[in-house]
């Protein structure tokens, strides 16, 4: 279980408990947090669950796979800490993590 804070593009903060094993994307969907579309449902096939991981947290999460890296290349408004939230598995180590949503997923 980890507390994760999602901050919308407009600045709205929502903090929720996300059980271990789920992804950061699922944490948003399950709590009806807007700003993550996840059209493909987590198959790493659509790049519509793009988030910016808080710079303080960015080094603490497992590195991107080659597949995620390639998909991200084509996300809109890419930043150095951009990730696909469907590829970040939640563990207790992520307790307190903050992610921010981009302006749009499309």
């Amino acid at each position: 279980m980890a507390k994760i804070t999602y901050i919308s593009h407009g600045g709205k903060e929502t903090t929720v408990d996300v059980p271990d094993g789920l992804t950061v994307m699922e944490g948003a969907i399950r709590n009806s947090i807007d700003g993550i579309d996840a059209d493909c449902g987590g198959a790493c096939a659509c790049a519509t669950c793009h988030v910016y991981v808080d710079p303080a947290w960015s080094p603490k999460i497992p590195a991107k796979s080659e597949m995620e890296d390639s998909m991200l290349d084509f996300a809109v408004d890419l930043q150095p800490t951009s990730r696909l939230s469907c590829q970040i598995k939640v563990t207790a180590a992520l307790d307190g993590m903050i992610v921010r949503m981009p302006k749009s997923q499309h």
Partner: protein
Amino acid sequence: MSETFVIIGAGQAGCQAAATLRSEHFTGDIVMIGDEAQPPYQRPPLSKKYLMGELAAPRLELRPRKFYDDQNVTLKLATRALSIDTRAHRITLSDGTSQPYTKVLLATGTRARPLAIPGADLTGIFYLRTLADVDQLRPQVAPGKRVVLLGGGFIGLEVAAVAAKLGCAVTVVEMAPRLMGRAVSDVVSKFYLDEHRKAGVTVYLDTASVAIEGANGAATGVKLSTGDTVPADIVLVGIGALPNDELAKAAGIACGNGIMVDEFGCTSDPDVFAAGDCADHPNPFAKGRFRLESVQNAIDQAKYAAKAMMGNKIAYHEVPWFWSDQYDLKLQMAGLAIGYDMTVQRGSTDARSFSVFYLENGRVIAVETVNAIPEYMIGRKLIAAKTHVDPEKLADPGVPIKTLAEG
């Protein structure tokens, strides 16, 4: 008086339509009717991670249960719509009630095409469309079981890959000369044939199943057009899907290859709309009317239809995209290979990372990629932007694919 929008079908399209109606500030009532017991869930993982046991059922749900309460969407599950009276604006439901509507969206999807050969009613024959289907099938896909898949399309091959991984003895029987013949090029078909054979799957091409043989009411094998019989503990039928358009037909709504809609999602009745797998729609990428069975189309078309229901009519024009996961291979497709005059291969099948681009008058209209995400993503952009590309550069893996999108 408050408006009531009824959504018939609680799948990916129906769920998206409800979400879009609310995000577009529709303030009337929304009632969603679904014949399955579960709230809307994702179907793609059913033949992949869910069958493999890597994903539990609750994780398939498209929205949390409280979403429907929070958004004031009334879910009527395990309930069928039996008929629509378009004049009275009422829908008769299987629970004996009658549901009034101002406008209705038909998001009824498809059902598996039934097997029509002798023995099709034996036990041990499965279909894969719903969560309930997979819950029945999954315990049967156990080590040592002989699994015969009728149909070498996405469903059959995804199940073949899972069953092979789980230690089953797997056979695929395909009537056409190649696998996934309706969806991919020869190169991709042949590559997947090799991959499945390497994984120990027996594949018959150009072969029809003529009968299911059985003993004591249970399937024991599949008799082929070659005269051979393949012994089977279970048979999975994956021979395509049929649009659920009977409800619309009975209501006098025009149907062709599914429920016919215009570019905005409206049917021949001005208060009835349709979206998703069931909708026969004008698709610019198909250069005519088409019916798409995909997550992309379910989501995007539902958004357009929901907006049209609110009077905001925008012509549907999204690039189609699809994917299939088999073994460690990610097959991704975008566009529709209709009307092309040239194909270009980039990368080699030996490297297990390659793509096939379809061109028409120098523009990319479709792409298929295997473990080649940059090519897939750039392909989607090239298709949407109708960019002219140099086929020689496209074929040369030495030329970074990104540079081709720059014009």
